[in-house]
């Protein structure tokens, strides 16, 4: 068993975890509040993109455009998630609008079918915007009355950690796609582990929160 085989097997873990998270999210959907419902939406869309990437990879041979699509999805979902929580909404609006314009321009201008020259900063920009929003929220909580609960703080820290690491790992996308160095597989495995851990945490969060809300609907 070599690294490539291990990576192939591990790659099926992501859609499996996503499927479980979607089932959990849909089951508890009526009891969840708006923020948690946005997370369910994010997981559903991530599952759709994962399936589409496998289909495109199998039939078309190229699924690189989905990096930009995934970046856009993450940006919009987490923008809506943080918009309701952050007091300084102007920051959110300015950052998100600028990022969306950039991502749309990438969708139009970048040639996704030329693998050798493909370099997208979509995930970098979307991850950076999410990191800034998470940091802004944390700052507001610390400087304000600090009404954040332990669960919300954990979720915010997980989002921050995941997107910060995503930004760094997916920065040299052309290298990850084109190089045949074993180091590339290691980076893809790191990325996969990050994905699986993040999706697992979101599943756990939805399960815990949904179960609590189901038992105590009044709060």
């Amino acid at each position, binding site marked *: 068993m070599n690294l490539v085989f291990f990576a192939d097997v591990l790659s099926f873990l992501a859609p499996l975890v996503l499927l479980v998270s979607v089932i959990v999210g849909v089951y508890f959907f009526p009891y969840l509040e708006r923020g948690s419902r946005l997370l369910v939406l994010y997981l559903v869309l991530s599952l759709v993109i994962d399936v589409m990437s496998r289909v495109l990879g199998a039939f078309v041979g190229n699924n690189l455009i989905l990096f930009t699509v995934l970046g856009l999805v993450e940006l919009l979902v987490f923008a809506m998630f943080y918009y309701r929580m952050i007091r300084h909404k102007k920051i959110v609006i300015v950052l998100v609008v600028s990022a969306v314009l950039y991502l749309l321009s990438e969708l139009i201008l970048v040639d996704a079918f030329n693998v*050798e*020259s*493909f*370099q997208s900063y979509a995930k*970098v920009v979307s991850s*950076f915007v999410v*990191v800034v929003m998470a*940091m802004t929220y*944390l*700052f507001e909580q*610390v*400087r304000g009355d*600090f009404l954040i609960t332990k669960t919300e703080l954990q979720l915010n820290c997980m989002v921050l950690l995941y997107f*910060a690491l995503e*930004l*760094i790992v997916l*920065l*040299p996308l*052309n*290298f990850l796609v*084109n*190089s045949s160095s074993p180091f590339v597989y290691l980076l893809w495995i790191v990325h996969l582990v990050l994905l699986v851990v993040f999706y697992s945490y979101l599943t756990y969060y939805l399960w815990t929160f949904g179960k609590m809300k189901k038992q105590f609907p009044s709060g």
Partner: protein
Amino acid sequence: MDIWQNEEAVSVWIIIAVLFAFFLISVIIILFRAIFKKMMDAKAAESKALLEYQKKLLQTSIEVQEKERKRIAEDLHDALIGKLALLQMETQVEYPNYKYGQQIRDCIDQARRISHDLSPPLLEFSSMSELLGDILESWRKVLNVNYTTNIISEVECAEVFKIQLMRIVQEMLVNVQKHANAKSVSVYYRQSTKGVALQFSDNGKGFDLKEHNRGLGLKNIESRVQYLQGVCRMNSVLNKGTSVLLLFDLNEMCYG
């Protein structure tokens, strides 16, 4: 040629990664500083509030002492000195059938009463439950008193503890009479190797616990409980009554 083989592209990636790492580290440092500052401000506010409270208790203690001195002086002046002055006048006039013996006995009783009030006799030989029983007995004329004890272990309490707890119970009884308009009080005293518990409840008119301007009596009680390193928990419901729970742990104050 792939982009990753181009030196310029690699430099751009490295610059972005380093700038982002720098941004993250700076933000984390600023965040931790803000958290630390908030914690320190909260601790400072707590210390200041505690200091203010200690000052108020000390002030109360001094006021109570002065009030006690004034009461003793009034007692001596009105009761004992008055009788002694009358006795002096009568010895000067020399009434033949006057009962000097009776007058002197009355003066001695008064002096004894004032002395016992200041410091009960046989304090070191009496148990805490007996001392509390004696105090409550004298109040049965004005209140319906229900006194129960649960002595799990017979241990000696220090004299200072006995005196302070007696003063607390006396203060609570005075409060009930002056403010609560209660018909009955219930006192439960429990003593074990772990500590001492005293529960004092009345069926009076209660009061609003959130009132910040507590009277001298309540502050006096808090001051004494704090001196004994105990815990005081008060519960009051308007028109239903008040309940006070005092807990004292095993320490030098409680056990001699």
